């Protein structure tokens, strides 16, 4: 027990240090958007876009959220980050945004554009029901550069963002 006690203390200290004890963040529910409206948004954009399709119940979406947060922090001036919530409830979506996108200054949730598909499905214009998460990379004017299905890793996200910027 004597040997384990310092280890237990260290674990408790680590848990206490890492636990999020900050105040709850108020966020707005994502703006409803149809597939056609999304298509117009892409076509009229003068900046490159990263479109991430996600849902609050999707575990891989949660895992890639910190990466998207980091990307927004670094590239929000040059790239629009559009987050499309699908197959979800408004409370689930706002809870997810409050939990995963509040830690930057200004909050990443303000730099991201949050939408929810009104029908609750992934718009056909974004590949239809291929499952979440999906991340689309568009050039200005909605030119599709690449699609990543499934959870995205840092290397792929960084490479595709660089591809958008150097084209």
């Amino acid at each position, binding site marked *: 027990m004597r040997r384990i006690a310092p280890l237990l203390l260290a674990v408790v200290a680590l848990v206490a240090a890492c*636990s999020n004890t900050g105040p709850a963040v108020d966020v707005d529910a994502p703006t409803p958007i149809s597939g056609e409206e999304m298509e117009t948004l892409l076509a009229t954009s003068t900046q490159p876009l990263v479109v991430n399709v996600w849902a609050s119940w999707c*575990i891989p979406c949660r895992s890639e959220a910190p990466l998207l947060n*980091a990307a927004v922090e670094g590239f929000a001036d040059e790239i629009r980050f559009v987050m499309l919530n699908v197959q979800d409830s408004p409370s689930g979506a706002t809870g997810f945004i409050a939990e995963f996108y509040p830690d930057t200054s200004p909050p990443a949730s303000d730099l991201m554009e949050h939408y929810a598909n009104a029908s609750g499905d992934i718009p056909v214009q974004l590949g239809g029901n291929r499952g979440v998460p999906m991340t689309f990379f568009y050039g200005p004017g909605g030119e599709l550069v690449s699609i990543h299905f499934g959870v995205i*890793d840092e290397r792929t996200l*960084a*490479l595709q963002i*660089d*591809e958008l910027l150097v*084209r």
Partner: protein
Amino acid sequence: MEFTLLANAAIAAFAGWAMLWWEGRRGNADRCAGSLWDTALIAVIVGIFVGRLVEMMINGVMPWLHPGDIVLVRAGISTMGATLAAVGTFFWVSRREPVAMADGISAAALATLSGWHGGCAVRGACLGTVSDLPWAIAQEGSAVTRHPVEIYAAMLFAAAAVGLALWKAYGRPPAGVPASLALLAAAGIRLITEPIRPSLGGGPVWFYVLGIVVGAVSAVFFWLRSRNPSPEPQTP
């Protein structure tokens, strides 16, 4: 299930196993009572697990709140957390003969890293920053050519692994020096390829510099110790 990642890991494991097999035929593990392969496998598994936990915590996703996320290795593993945990586990398991075991695994560890980086081809993850060099490659659907940075790393790791294995086989290096040089090489290769590797926040450069310093200092220490061995205690 991420099959391309598994295939990449299998290539890395095979490269490490092949090096151990080649070295084993030349008496690499004769000084070791423990199994190099088993010990390395345990260290790698612990390293991946701890590296994933550290990465989650760094990103603000607490493993005890979201335990299901731990299996999503694709979402990221902390290089620093994984390395420290793997090295710590290796030395703990082989604590009876740490220097001999570390020397025994040194070339195989570099070969494993070569396999890991070279296996980027199976998951389409070889490219780095933009380059106009003749061998630069464009990703599918793009005209922008890039450094095949993971191939550079794989070649450098392979050269280091083969060089170290040959030295161990024919040069009789002092105990502790091969492991020290392997650490120096691994950290150095990661450091020099880091600037051309795509990243959102930059890699842990200071960690690689620390690895180089520790590797260099320990190599000098073991080399000096081999030249001035401490006298055997005299029995009455």
